[in-house]
């Protein structure tokens, strides 16, 4: 399970990082979202992975650490808010700057991520 989990987190963050470095706002936002998922999964695993343990003390003999779940909940809420904000901001930038390029202009070489 650890191998699969780390593979998923790794692929998610690698694709997130790749998209984050693109030149247009839409891929950048998708990149941020992917990176956010990777981070949330990573946070979820930070107390150690365990398949047969509830996060409630008394429900199982060796309960799992409840703190990461509380943290990941907070992180998800904040992450959603931020993603929503960036999406709106990108739409605003598209209308104000007349281009969906992150720099606000159609660069000759910067024309990537089409």
């Amino acid at each position, binding site marked *: *399970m*650890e191998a699969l989990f780390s593979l998923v987190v790794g692929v998610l963050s690698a694709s997130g990082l790749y998209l*984050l470095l693109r030149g247009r*706002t839409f891929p*950048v936002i998708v990149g*941020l979202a992917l*990176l*956010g998922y*990777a*981070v949330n999964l*990573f*946070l979820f*695993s*930070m*107390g*150690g*992975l*365990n*398949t*047969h*343990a509830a996060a409630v003390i008394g429900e199982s003999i*060796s*309960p*799992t*650490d409840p*703190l*990461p779940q509380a*943290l990941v909940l*907070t*992180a998800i809420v*904040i992450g959603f*808010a*931020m*993603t929503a*904000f*960036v999406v709106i*901001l*990108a739409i*605003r*930038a598209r209308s*104000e*700057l007349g281009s969906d390029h*992150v*720099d*606000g202009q159609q660069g000759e070489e910067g024309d990537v991520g089409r």
Partner: protein
Amino acid sequence: MNQHLIILPILLPMVGALALLLMGKASFATHRRISVSLTAALVAVSLLLLSHAASGELTFYSLGNWQAPFGIVLMLDRLSALMLMLTAVLALGCILFASAGDDTKGSNFHGLFQLQLVGLNGAFLTGDLFNLFVFFEILLLASYALLMHGGGKARVGAGLHYVILNVAGSALFLIALGVLYGATGTLNMADMARRVATMSGDQAALVTAGALMLVVVFSLKAALLPLYFWLPRTYSAAPAPVAALFAIMTKVGLYAILRVQTMIFVDSPAAGGITAWLWWSGLATIVLAAVGVLAARDMRPLIAYLVLVSVGTLLAGAALGTTAATTALLYYLPHTTLICGALFLIAEMIGQQRGKAGTRLVRARRLHQRHLLGGLFLVAAVAVAGLPPLAGALGKLLLMQAAEGSERLWLWPLLLLAGLCALIAMSRAGSVFFWASYKGEVTAGKISRPQLIGVLWLLASAPLLVIFGGPVSAYTQATAEQLANPQEPIRQLLGDDPTQQIVLIQDTGESP
């Protein structure tokens, strides 16, 4: 002191922000009155907390009465009291200035301003790393909206970069927290410090990785090289009172670095790496910012680069790590923050009277109140370049005295040359603004009274910090000594006996 006073710097602006956001239909005058009186009350509360912390006593406040290390605690020591005071003073100047009309250019300025103060004060008070993340997000989200206040092409473009960078930075912050939690099993700073001190092998390597990632995140907030490229554009695009308030934002990063460096990772293998990174990037930041100061063709980016010079100076000072260096940098910190804030406001007032030319360094029409503005500009320029008799000179002198050996070889010339660059740039800007003007009618109106009061309030810090130089430097020295002794807060918060803590679940690593 009432034991609940410590949470007031968070609650006061939070309740105020909610009230201001809910009463959106009330007149601007009402909004301003509430916002200014709230901020003035914040200054009073911070003053009380400062006088309490000056006694050297550490105050802890367990939220919901959950005991550390399980619950979230707020911690007030001399450093956080100093930062609270600085925030409140800067905020009062900015809000007075904004009340002259900048707040009417968009919606909900005052509510967002108060939310920003919630985030700042919370970040300075919290004793828990995850809570630090949450307060960072609060202050960032408020700053995104404030930056966009009034709209316009430049702001949206700069804002997009700023927001994307900070969201990516937050992701890195969370990864660092996850790594540190995985290695130490706690997020409370004092508890983590205690556990890091006894770590070895793989765990220690994880802690080092987490610590360095944290420092990268904080360097992004503090705008240290190579993570500063967002700052000049963002700060010069922001509305003047917001840019002035942002002068404290880089110091939040510095505060967080100081906090984790002196408290958590002081004995860990990560300490050496952090110091080396801070020292060399701090020096390189000074160099590049000084070049930027000389190259700027507009007053606003010029001031933004001056903010960067101070960031580089402060972080190089933090890398020295001695008590004398920390004393010096804590003396220099309030001065440079307030003066950079005041400069943004003065630039705005100058821009208002120059018509289309704004703050660009070109020949333009004559200023309406050139004697008043010239006087203000002169005081601010002398202060920011670090010339005697104002506080900048004293702060830099203290910092240079704190450097020893080969550090002196690097710090002295860079610091002095950066001061010279600032002086050259400011004299050039001043002569363009006040001397190189076309003859003819002046059309712009006068500076309004709240604007002038706001600027004078901030500018007064430069002479005051010299006049009260003795008590202030005594306070910062006591702060540095308190920071140099991180065992004390740990002992007071968690007790003497480390075995009495419940060991968190360790045996969850195996998968069936």
